[in-house]
């Protein structure tokens, strides 16, 4: 690489100049930080200060800069120098604003600032400007595979095609339309929400046929999916068994749902004559083709009862525990089929909670206008036959009663077609790899329901979230997927109605487009969108321990036949979990590595025992804990000046070497601050916090071996709102360290 030139810029604004001995700071940067150029400025973030830095980059060939001013989260627009590597020493939020005022604190305040300068300089020494995925010339395929030709799939295909992208649409049946094609009409998509609307399936199918950018494969399934965003290798299999191969850039999975099997509801008349599910009613309605709907036995229907939540919202554990959301509106629509054809037909919708959110309320009112009767009741027994009977508890009239009807419709729920459950898969797979024949057999069976047949080390489909749906775990990011470049949409992602499914499809298409654009530019996808760094492994040092391949939250790392990790940069989300996992430390990023952090730890000036100034290392998740520390500063909360905080991409990226180095060097304690773990985990890299806890439980033993108290390393869950709490945590810990005394390791570092 061209010779690096290192420069440090120290801002004296916002009171930094008044609080610190600037000359001393500059000295530290020059002498200890070994910066070939060190400049101070009274107002570094203003036009003049920024220009000064630009000039140095242009005229002095500066390649690496350390900005010692405010937090890396502040003034990002001003301090934006894309052509050089940059570190930020947080003198303002990190020191000035959080160290108690008063002369008695001047010394420790100065020490803290000097350490942060040392750290900033040490970090930049080990940083390089990321150049982006080196293989990106092979990841430029921008076409999108849509799996599933139902309403969701068709919408996604059209949405992306309309934006100029090539689409491959795969449908396993012999026609487009999916479940929507089985409907007589749909619940209205737009106002007035008064009557059922035409499904529009035929028109969509037609416009897909007419769209040159969309290539449709009917009677086709995905036999295998390999590769990564920008270069997915797909094998398509047709019924005839013929297999074709193609490359796509991203995938939208719209594999839809299956109605819950009415046969599992004998107590509600499932399987008996004239008791149908909503799909069954649609079939009768299609047969009637707008005329009076007749029963399967051809008889007229004078009365019909719709039983809501059939086999849903089940608390016994036998049926579906969730609510499918669309069923109330669907029953209302179906009741309208009858009323619109003949107002004389009695239609009763039996509900517990009538769930028609948003404009659905208009639809509900419209049904009442048309004379549909709504009864708040819980059906206990349905008997089919020539005259059906629904026994139920009327919750308003507070009585056990019954109602007769010519037809009963059970509103059953949606079961996701999301393929293989990876948790089950991993179990079976581990056994199988252990040579268990039964497990191998089971594994083959499992694969038969797979949708994508991914050849990923971590299993053949996208991970499922809850109740078998492949939803995102995040509220702010419904498309945050654990398989980069693959986006679930429609009722396989979450139970939903047709309107939401079309919107969902459009959103998923958007993310797929983004994925191919990112891959082509060699940069990361959400949440580190735009990050050009990627993991580099020195395989010569690798011991094939497989931790990285097992622990990668995104299934980005496969293994070659020799069990060496095979990194798929385009699948990688740059969290660094692999780096944290690697016992031999062969994995690193250009701008984030064992060294960039390790050298910061080493750079901290640890006072001798007699000075009685403890040092506490904080490794803080950059998305939640570090902002919390920042905001503690913004709110001028004070905490111990003995701490030295380093932001990390994720606790999952924390390599235990940093901890041991710190302790060996005489740090008296280490605090790790990460996101909430467990079922409601808040880590956007899924298991980061969990990993840290796990790894630290290991380190506990090593500590005791070193004769160190286990309290010297703690892991805390810190939420981004914990400004006040984080300050308290620090102070309490400082007090605790004070109680157990300084580390015996000082001076050996």
């Amino acid at each position, binding site marked *: 690489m061209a010779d690096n030139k290192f420069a440090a810029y120290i801002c004296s604004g916002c009171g930094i100049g008044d609080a610190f001995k600037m000359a001393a700071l500059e000295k530290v940067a020059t002498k200890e930080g070994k910066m070939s150029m060190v400049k101070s400025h009274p107002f570094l973030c203003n036009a003049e200060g920024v220009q000064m830095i630009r000039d140095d980059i242009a005229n002095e060939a500066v390649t690496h800069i350390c900005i010692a001013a405010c937090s890396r989260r502040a003034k990002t627009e001003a301090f934006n120098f894309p052509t050089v590597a940059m570190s930020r020493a947080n003198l303002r939020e990190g020191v000035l604003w959080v160290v108690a005022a008063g002369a008695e604190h001047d010394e420790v305040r100065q020490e803290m600032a000097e350490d942060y300068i040392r750290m900033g300089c040490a970090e930049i020494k080990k940083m390089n400007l990321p150049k982006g995925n080196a293989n990106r010339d092979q990841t430029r395929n921008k076409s999108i595979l849509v799996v599933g030709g139902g309403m969701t799939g068709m919408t996604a295909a059209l949405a992306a095609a309309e934006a100029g992208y090539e689409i491959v649409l795969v449908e396993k049946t012999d026609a487009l339309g999916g479940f929507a094609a089985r409907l007589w009409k749909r619940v209205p998509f737009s106002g007035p929400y008064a009557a059922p609307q035409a499904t529009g399936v035929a028109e969509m199918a037609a416009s897909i046929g007419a769209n040159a950018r969309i290539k449709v494969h009917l009677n086709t399934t995905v036999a295998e999916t390999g590769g990564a965003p920008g270069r997915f290798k797909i094998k398509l299999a047709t019924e005839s068994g013929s297999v074709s191969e193609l490359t796509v850039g991203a995938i939208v999975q719209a594999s839809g749902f299956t109605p819950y099997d009415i046969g599992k509801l004998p107590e509600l008349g499932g399987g008996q004559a004239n008791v149908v599910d909503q799909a069954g009613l649609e079939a009768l309605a299609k047969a009637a083709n707008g005329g009076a709907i007749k029963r399967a036995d051809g008889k007229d229907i004078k009365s019909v009862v719709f039983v809501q939540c059939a086999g849903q919202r089940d608390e016994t554990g036998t049926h579906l525990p969730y609510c499918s959301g669309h069923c109330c509106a669907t029953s209302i629509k179906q009741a309208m089929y009858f009323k619109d054809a003949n107002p004389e037909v009695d239609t009763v919708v039996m509900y517990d909670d*009538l769930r028609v959110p948003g404009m659905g309320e208009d639809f509900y009112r419209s049904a009442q*206008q048309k004379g549909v009767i709504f009864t708040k009741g819980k059906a206990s027994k349905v008997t089919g036959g020539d005259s059906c009977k629904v026994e139920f508890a009327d919750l*308003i*009239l507070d009585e056990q009663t019954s109602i007769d009807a010519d037809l009963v419709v059970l509103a059953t729920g949606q079961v996701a077609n999301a393929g293989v459950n990876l948790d089950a898969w991993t179990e079976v797979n581990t056994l199988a790899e252990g040579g268990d024949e039964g497990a191998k057999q089971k594994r083959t069976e499992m694969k038969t329901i797979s949708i994508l047949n991914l050849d990923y080390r971590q299993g053949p489909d996208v991970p499922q979230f809850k109740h078998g749906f492949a939803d995102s775990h995040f509220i702010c990011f419904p498309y945050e997927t654990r398989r980069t470049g693959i986006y679930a949409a429609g009722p396989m992602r979450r139970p939903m109605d047709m309107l939401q499914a079309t919107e969902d499809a459009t959103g998923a298409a958007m993310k797929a487009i983004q994925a191919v654009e990112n891959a082509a530019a060699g940069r990361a996808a959400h949440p580190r969108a735009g990050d050009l760094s990627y993991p580099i492994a020195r395989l010569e040092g690798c011991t094939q321990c497989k931790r990285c391949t097992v622990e990668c939250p995104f299934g980005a790392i496969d293994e070659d036949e020799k069990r060496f990790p095979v990194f798929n940069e385009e699948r990688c989300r740059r969290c660094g979990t692999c780096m944290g996992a690697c016992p031999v430390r062969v994995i690193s990023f250009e701008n984030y590595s064992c060294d960039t952090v390790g050298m910061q730890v080493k750079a901290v000036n640890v006072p001798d025992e007699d000075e009685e100034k403890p040092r506490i290392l904080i490794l803080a998740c950059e998305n939640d804990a570090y902002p919390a520390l920042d905001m503690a500063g913004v709110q001028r909360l004070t905490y111990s000046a003995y701490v030295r905080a380093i932001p990390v991409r994720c606790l999952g990226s924390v390599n235990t070497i940093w901890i041991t180095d710190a302790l060996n060097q005489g740090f008296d304690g280490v605090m790790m601050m990460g996101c909430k773990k467990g079922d409601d985990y808040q880590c956007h890299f899924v298991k980061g916090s969990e990993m840290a806890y796990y790894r630290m439980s290991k380190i506990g033993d090593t500590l005791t071996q070193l004769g160190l108290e286990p309290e010297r390393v703690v892991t805390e869950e810190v939420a981004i709102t914990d400004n006040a709490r984080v300050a308290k945590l620090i102070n309490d810990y400082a007090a605790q360290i004070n109680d157990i005394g300084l580390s015996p390791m000082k001076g050996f570092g």
Partner: protein
Amino acid sequence: MSDLNTQAVARYKNNFLREVEERVEEGNMVKMCMQCGVCAGSCPFGPHWQHSPQKIFMMIRAGKREEVLSSDSMWMCTSCYNCIVRCPRKLPITHIMHGLANYAHRLNLAAKGQPTRDVARLFWNNLMKTGRINELTFSLGLYFKDGFIQGIKNSLAMQAAGLGLLKAKRLNPMEIFGGHKCKEKSGIHRMIAKAREIEDRRRGLA
């Protein structure tokens, strides 16, 4: 009267909602109730009736004809309009209650001796005499509605009030001899008779 009832039963079979929609004032709005219960909680006489309005509406949908028409609930309506202004579905609940009471009365299914029913009848007959209410004869009528003895008791009981009004010249003993009246008395009788005839025809009660 009761033949009106049998005839109605025959005509509507068990579809009481239809019967209410066709024969009861504002009855076609009953189906719009969403069972929130705000009416039940808004009625000043709430603690006193058997069924809340929203429950009456549910009973109508459930075809509980006898129970509804013999309920005392609609006779407890003070016409305060609290329910109407609070109903999120804008049901004219007061009018529906009035309508149900009137219908139950016409079919003679309303409870015998239901006091409000009697007062309502007295009031109407009183105003029909002259076209205007004669407060004296109306109140006397009230006292004596349950027979002479009871009437004396009632009037003695209300003597204080009566005398008070008398003293205040707000009750005129001369009214006993007719008092205020509309000149077009007979015309009004014809008009009302006609109105009744039309309404009964429409409601199938003719």
